[in-house]
């Protein structure tokens, strides 16, 4: 039992628990808090995978921006309304959905355990992450190089997407008068 394994197991249990919390809490604020914790734990996973930049960006964007927005909306809209007050129109869906979910996770795990282990081709010499990290003295720099050279076009497209999203939000958010 090395430190690596212990930390993985602890993290995995915590993440699963909080993720379950997201869908189990009746109050949406509690769900949101649970999701925030899940996201922070995922950031720790990323740290474990030596993706420091992604980890911090995960905190910055997901926990810092997206979930704030969620919390904002949740607290603003019917903060006291609990879901269980309303009658469930299709109660059988819970059982079927849960069962199907179990099948899904079982099938995926089975696949991952028995199927071909992903040993896949390692990145080519020019494309290796470790090499890039050494060359640029850090994964942030390596990430930046990759983003602005190989992925420039998708990156720019994303900026367009964000502008469209902002405009869309503005249109929806305008009061109808």
């Amino acid at each position, binding site marked *: 039992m090395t430190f690596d394994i212990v930390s993985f197991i602890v993290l995995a249990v915590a993440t699963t628990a909080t993720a379950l919390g997201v869908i189990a809490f009746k109050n949406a*604020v509690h769900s949101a808090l649970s999701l925030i914790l899940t996201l922070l734990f995922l950031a720790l996973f990323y740290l474990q995978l030596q993706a*420091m930049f992604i980890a911090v*960006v995960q905190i*910055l964007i997901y*926990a810092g*921006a997206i979930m704030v927005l969620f919390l*904002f909306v949740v*607290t603003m809209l019917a903060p006291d309304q609990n879901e269980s007050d309303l009658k469930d129109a299709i109660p059988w869906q819970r059982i079927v959905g849960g069962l199907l979910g179990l099948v899904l996770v079982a099938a995926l795990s089975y696949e991952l355990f028995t199927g071909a282990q992903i040993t896949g081709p390692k990145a080519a010499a020019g494309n290796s992450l470790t090499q890039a990290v050494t060359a640029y003295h*850090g994964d942030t720099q390596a990430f930046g190089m990759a983003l602005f050279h190989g992925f420039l076009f998708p990156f720019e497209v994303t900026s367009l997407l964000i502008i469209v999203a902002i405009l869309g939000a503005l249109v929806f958010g305008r009061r109808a008068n």
Partner: protein
Amino acid sequence: MFDFMNDPTVALIVATIVKGAILIVVLLTAFAYMTLIERRVVAKMQGRIGPNRAGPLGLLQPVADALKMAFKEQIVPTQAKKAIYLVAPVISVVVALCAFAVVPIGNNWSGSRNVHSIWDPMIGNINVGILWILAISSLAVYGIVLGGWASGNRYSLLGALRSAAQMVSYETSLGLALSGVLMWTGSLSMVDIVTRQQDMGIWFILAQPLGFVIYLIAGVAEVNRAPFDLPEAEQELTAGYLTEYSGLRWSLYQMAEYINMITVSAIASTLFLGGWSFFGLTDGIPVLSLVIFVLKVALFLFLFIWLRATLPRIRYDRLMRFGWQVLLPLSVLNIVITAFAVALHWSWIVSGLGGLIVIVIMLFVMRRKGILEGTRFTDALKDKEGKTHLPTSVRLATFENTTLPAAIEKEPEAQDSTAVRV
């Protein structure tokens, strides 16, 4: 006895814990004495004396305050969501303390850039230092929003939502203002930023005057200090998200606020004033770097107090408009100027001058606009029937229009104060 310290990993962990503990103690003490200093300074500015009874010069006042707070009754409102209500202030403090982890407080003890020791005065030199600070400080909203929401009080909720909107709005400008520095440095690490300023022989305030100004303004707004202390406005919101808090938990929020203030000051001095460095003075005597750093931070803290004593609170809609329509475009402009200078290998003087010119123009324009707009609701806000409409951003409640006596209607100033009734 200290054999286990031979393992480098263990040694690193132990050193980090010890350094963290020291930092927390220092920060908490600093918080305590900041309150005292603030009260004394503000009192001086207002021609009063301030607390001077407990101990010499009032030095024991913080201790007295702490004792008072600790023994006060902690009221939990019945309509509160208890768990979150209790946890929210803690989130605030923890987040505030976390952000400080990547700030380099002084030079390496060796005095040399390349000789490191695990006991060097910084907790972690990570590759994404600034991003870490931004990420952590973006979590600070939670303490406030959750506290406001969990109090089960409308005033608290409104204050919390205002605060969230304000912090999210100014966070963008804040992050963008830092980008200029990052472009000059080419690294996100705080240590690199300091060494880069040493190498260039300047402080980045010279290359980034516009970024500095934007950062300061956004920073003040980010920590909810006057004149941007809308979230806790006593007059409008009966202290906002703090309404239902009392005793130790109330002081936790205060603690978070002051620690955030210190963090903002520390980042400002690291990024724009060369951090712990002082033109080569610190290379020989590393301990001096701590003193220099504290002095620089103190400078900013004094500025915070000064602002509070001087400026009146800004109106909410103006606050938002200023954030989105002035600060954000300016910070983008700053990025553009800096990007040109960096990409084309121009001297830092170019971006410095460019920033200064923009600042001058903006001051001029804002002064003119301010004069044109006046500081009151103008006629432009009235529709044809003479009804007054507030800007949408402040229309959080419905207003009923009261008919006015004809005599008052002729007098615009009186009308402004009475036409709107909540």
